[in-house]
């Protein structure tokens, strides 16, 4: 029943003719083309990304029927300011690093704008309360709160905008994100925002069963649904029904006769003219299932009579390391701690849901635009499904709303490519949030059995470690999990003997795959908590104990070889020592004063090492070109899903060339235009791709200097670059525009594009896939937690993080990575848990809100790397590793009993407090 609705939108009168029951969100995005307002949940008001102002009041546009806005004023992020005239809030968000992926940003800005209009001088608590309904997964909220404080001060006329950045050096000085003005004004087009006339809509038929045989798939009724054009099943796959290059046992669509192995397994694709028709089509596809017994517990899946999930049995992969004689070392120990630690399935919970847009490009390639960690890999996985050569498929990385590993899964690219292959028309898909929770890979739940020995003098002796990782229904990139589990699980410590074995086990739970830290946070949690048990047993000090046992730079480690990069663990521990001591003393005093209340403060410490080492051939390439316009163009594949690598690459290129960032243009992550930089994760992009880019621009500079030296009649060594010009020495009168040099190269027929390679093959001869370069970063964190021992409620009040990053190329964004990782780690420690069959979305998967955020101090310990650009190492994942064990050690110390399972819900904490005799 359409109605005419007139209202004021961003200061202008608008009239729309629509169903007044549609949500304001849909009307803004679909009818009015204002895609700055985002949808992050299933129109349930759970995430806050769609927040707009209605008569100045923040509301969820996904819960607001369009009819309600008749005659009223609506303000969206597009109306707050534009790139040339930013609102003080938008400017402050840009300048403080409050934006990572940017998907929550519009909602955050609108909630903040409403607050400042009502209260020009808000306290920190006021800001937190205004933003507590807006979820962010990247930043950890700290920078957002700071941005609102800064904007408020500026709007009160108290702080002058900082204009220094423009003149600053690219590294360490000029820190603004490359595309920040678009991100803070809602202009950035994420996949769902990209206009594509005539695009069809795809939805997926998914299994409701954890384990069942597909007996029949009847698409007839679905094809009768008005608007449905095609239903694709396994029979429609022209190539291989497999993404085995990534996930060795996973089909694209489960065929008739095959088995679905988890809830959410894909059986068919419905393609229709509208999303509604596609959804109706999904409901009309009749799949006959024969349910099979399902097993969700990996230890049950290992039983001899367990239900077989895959033909080869229920073990996906194993890995073991033996070093010295662990049994003898343990037998000779003064103290031995035996402990079993458990972790849960975790969900990335990026605020942008999975989305893809497919079409046929101008050269006839099947093209898919979708978030990815490496477009070339996704292209290579998708092409065989279509029976095509990789060159006939193209994958492009769009602006993406967060990943944390989630977007490494190639299924969506393969399925979208398949639809375009058949339809020869543009096809788009966006998961529902429910679907994202059901079908996306999770963090592997671990069961870790630890036996650790030590002498009375506090020297570690032996380590016996058994890890069972639940990989769920599929490999999903989890094949190498046992290796990562063990390497992290032994830590940066000197052991006389190690006996470690890990296995990845199939169940009918959700497939587990890549997630920030890939298999390392779980075992590091168990290790650092077990060490804390030992430290308490020995009455030792957490900092001194770790220092005493820390691996030294050049020694052969328990892995059997020395590390190949600088190792800053001792420096990290030294740096955090005074902060640990101060917080620990304060907690003691607090507990003394609260002796008769249920309140206790605990302080916990945990360390980590994280291997950002590359596997396979240790060689990565990038390209640099001098454009005809005289600007430098860098070509590489370093997908930026919010972590800020695009900015870092531009900073590195500008610093290397000695020019400003404006002189650099980045072409990134498009298989049609960039090289395969072979970096699908593991915090390698700055080190490896950055290193290759530095070499490419250095080589380009030499070529340019050569040509310019002829033109300027000076030796190449005297040629100086200055943004758009080259000069002979310091003589400004003997100069040329770079565009003139480019024209001369063109006339000479000389290539203006050169390749640069970071090649460490000489250092690591004969490296193959399963061998990783032993490059490690280290860090340590201290958590202070306030616990109510009567209710089990815990609040992390303070975290101090010390991390060796080699060199912080963009210190503000590096800090943002650490803060975001800490809050994500806090979620894992206290509240996050995906329970198969129970968890459906944001309403019952609890990620931290602004109110959960602790005060965070970040200390960068810069022990320069040997081979990385400007001394940089890797950072994105590592800071999540120490957070959960630091928090759990703090709580365990506060309540006097050990918590060995996360999340440490209030219920588990209360149980521990009772065990500790506090109640």
């Amino acid at each position, binding site marked *: 029943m359409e109605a005419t609705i007139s209202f004021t939108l961003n200061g202008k009168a608008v009239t729309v003719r629509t169903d007044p029951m549609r949500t304001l969100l849909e009307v803004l995005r679909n009818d009015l083309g204002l895609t700055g307002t985002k949808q992050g949940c299933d129109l349930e*008001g759970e995430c806050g990304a769609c927040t707009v102002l209605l008569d100045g009041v923040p509301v969820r546009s996904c819960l607001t029927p369009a009819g309600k806005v008749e005659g009223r004023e609506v303000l969206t992020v597009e109306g707050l300011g534009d790139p040339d005239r930013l609102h003080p809030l938008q400017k402050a968000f840009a300048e403080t690093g409050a934006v990572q992926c940017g998907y929550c940003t519009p909602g955050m800005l609108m909630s903040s704008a409403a607050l400042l209009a009502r209260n020009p001088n808000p306290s920190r608590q006021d800001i937190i309360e205004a933003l507590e309904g807006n979820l962010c997964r990247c930043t950890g909220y700290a920078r957002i709160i700071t941005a609102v404080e800064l904007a408020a001060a500026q709007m009160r006329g108290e702080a002058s905008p900082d204009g220094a950045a423009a003149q600053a050096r690219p590294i360490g000085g000029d820190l603004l994100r490359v595309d920040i003005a678009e991100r803070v004004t809602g202009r950035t087009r994420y996949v769902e925002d990209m206009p594509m006339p005539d695009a069809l809509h795809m939805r997926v038929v998914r299994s409701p069963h954890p384990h069942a045989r597909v007996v029949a798939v009847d698409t007839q009724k679905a094809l009768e649904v008005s608007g449905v054009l095609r239903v694709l099943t396994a029979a429609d796959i022209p190539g291989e029904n497999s993404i085995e290059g990534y996930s060795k046992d996973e089909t694209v669509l489960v065929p008739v006769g095959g088995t679905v192995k988890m809830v959410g397994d894909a059986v068919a694709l419905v393609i229709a003219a509208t999303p509604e028709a596609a959804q109706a089509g999904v409901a009309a596809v009749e799949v006959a299932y024969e349910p099979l017994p399902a097993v969700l517990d990996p230890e049950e899946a290992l039983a001899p009579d367990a239900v077989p999930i895959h033909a080869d049995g229920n073990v996906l992969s194993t890995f073991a390391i033996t070093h010295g004689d662990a049994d003898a070392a343990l037998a000779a120990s003064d103290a031995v701690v035996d402990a079993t630690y458990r972790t849960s399935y975790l969900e990335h919970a990026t605020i942008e849901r999975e989305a893809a847009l497919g079409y046929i490009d101008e050269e006839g390639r099947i093209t898919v635009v979708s978030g990815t960690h490496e477009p070339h890999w996704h292209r290579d996985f998708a092409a065989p499904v279509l029976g095509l050569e990789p060159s006939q498929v193209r994958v492009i990385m769009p602006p993406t709303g967060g990943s944390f590993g989630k977007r490494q899964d190639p299924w969506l690219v393969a399925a979208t490519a398949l639809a375009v292959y058949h339809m020869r028309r543009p096809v788009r898909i966006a998961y529902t949030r429910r679907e994202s929770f059901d079908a996306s890979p999770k963090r592997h739940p671990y069961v870790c059995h630890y036996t650790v020995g030590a002498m009375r003098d506090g020297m570690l002796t032996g380590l016996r470690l058994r890890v069972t990782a639940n990989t769920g229904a599929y490999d999903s990139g989890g094949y190498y999990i046992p290796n990562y589990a063990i390497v992290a699980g032994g830590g940066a410590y000197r052991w006389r003997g190690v006996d470690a074995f890990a296995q990845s086990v199939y169940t009918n739970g959700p497939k587990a795959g890549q997630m920030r830290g890939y298999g390392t946070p779980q075992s590091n949690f168990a290790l650092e908590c077990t060490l804390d048990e030992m430290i308490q047993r020995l009455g030792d000090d957490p900092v001194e104990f770790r220092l005493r046992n820390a691996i030294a730079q050049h020694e052969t480690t328990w892995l059997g070889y020395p590390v190949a990069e600088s190792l800053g663990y001792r420096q990290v521990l030294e740096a955090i020592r005074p902060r640990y001591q101060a917080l620990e003393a304060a907690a003691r005093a607090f507990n003394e004063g609260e002796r008769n209340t249920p309140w206790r403060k605990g302080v916990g410490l945990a360390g980590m090492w994280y291997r950002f080492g590359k596997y396979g051939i240790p060689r990565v390439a990038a390209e640099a070109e001098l454009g005809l316009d005289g600007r430098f163009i860098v070509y590489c594949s370093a997908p930026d899903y919010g972590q800020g690598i695009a900015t870092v690459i531009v900073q590195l290129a500008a610093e290397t060339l000695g020019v400003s960032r404006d002189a650099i243009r980045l072409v990134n992550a498009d298989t049609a235009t960039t090289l395969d930089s072979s970096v699908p994760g593991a915090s390698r992009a700055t080190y490896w791709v950055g290193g290759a880019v530095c070499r490419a621009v250095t080589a380009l500079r030499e070529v340019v200097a050569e040509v310019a030296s002829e033109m300027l009649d000076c030796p190449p060594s005297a040629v100086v670059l200055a943004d758009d010009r080259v000069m002979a020495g310091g003589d400004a009168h003997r100069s040329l525009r770079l565009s003139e040099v480019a024209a001369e190269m063109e006339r000479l027929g000389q290539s203006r594009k050169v390749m640069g390679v970071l090649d460490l093959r000489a250092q690591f001869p004969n490296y193959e896939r399963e061998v990783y370069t032993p490059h490690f970063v280290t860090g340590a964190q201290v958590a202070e937690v306030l616990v109510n021992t009567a209710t089990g409620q815990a609040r992390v009040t303070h975290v101090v993080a010390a991390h060796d990053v080699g060199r912080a190329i963009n210190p503000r964004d590096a800090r943002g990575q650490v803060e975001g990782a800490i809050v994500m780690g806090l979620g894992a420690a206290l509240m996050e848990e995906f329970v198969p069959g129970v968890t459906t979305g944001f309403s019952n998967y609890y990620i931290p809100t602004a109110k*959960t955020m602790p005060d965070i101090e970040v200390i960068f310990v810069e022990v320069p790397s040997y081979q990385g650009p400007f001394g940089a190492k890797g950072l994105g994942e590592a800071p999540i590793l120490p957070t959960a064990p630091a928090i759990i050690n703090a709580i365990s110390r506060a309540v006097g009993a050990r918590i060995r399972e996360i999340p440490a819900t209030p219920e588990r904490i209360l149980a521990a407090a009772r065990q500790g005799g506090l109640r």
Partner: protein
Amino acid sequence: MTHYRMAASVEEALEILEEHGGEARIMAGGTDVMVDMHKGRIAPRCLVDITRIPELRAISVEGEWVQVGAAVTFAEIHRHPFIAQRVHVLAEAARSVGALPIQTAATWAGNIVQAMPAADGAIAALALQAEARIADAEGARWKPVETLFVRPGVSAVNPCRQVITHIRFRVPSGLWGSAWTRAGRRESLVLPTLNCGVSLRLHEDGTVAEAVIALGPVAPTPYRARDAEAFLRGKTPDAAAFAEAGCIITGDCNPRTSPARASREYRLALIPEMVAQALEVATRRAQPSVEAAVR
């Protein structure tokens, strides 16, 4: 397809309901109705928006009643000076509903009609012994909110035939105080593991004249702890009495295990703590302050 009508008066709203013979439904903020419709839980032929009916948009403090219109949002409630300063249980409950951009649309009346066992607004209404004015074709009448809950998600008020126009409760007088406690898996944007609203009136001699204690979700409907209330009457409001009140409640109520939130056992463990904490704060607020004594 659902019609959408903006009612200009209560009479018009009721007429529209009548016209549709039970297939139209009242909507205020829409924060629950929209979700229920998207999920297919309800499919009304027409929604009647009451948020622009002038008489439903005000909070009044007149004579012995505080009266809150059905279109007043939770944000308007917790920002109302009288409520913020004097009626803590309501102000704090209103701040607990979802998060601010939900509180700016959601209403107290709507929250009560949803009839969920731990609805923050419902628990606060019980603690205040609030009444709702229910209008329908037969006229209008005041009923205690406590009598409006049938079972989880089912209210005695039929939103397809009836409309709550106002909610009222007595203006606090004498030595009166109230408090709100709430536990959840995180500190905001979360349904409660347990919520508890309390109001307390003291005799001049400091003993309890009247205690009202409400909790959720510990029963199929919002729960009023009448035995504990009776026990507290005449007692000195101290830790021992509060502990005993907690024990009585623990013995009487019947919380369930919800896999995504908490177990029955944990909720039972939490009840005495949350009740005692609420009673303690309410007692402090009821006691004559030093400042007041000086005045």
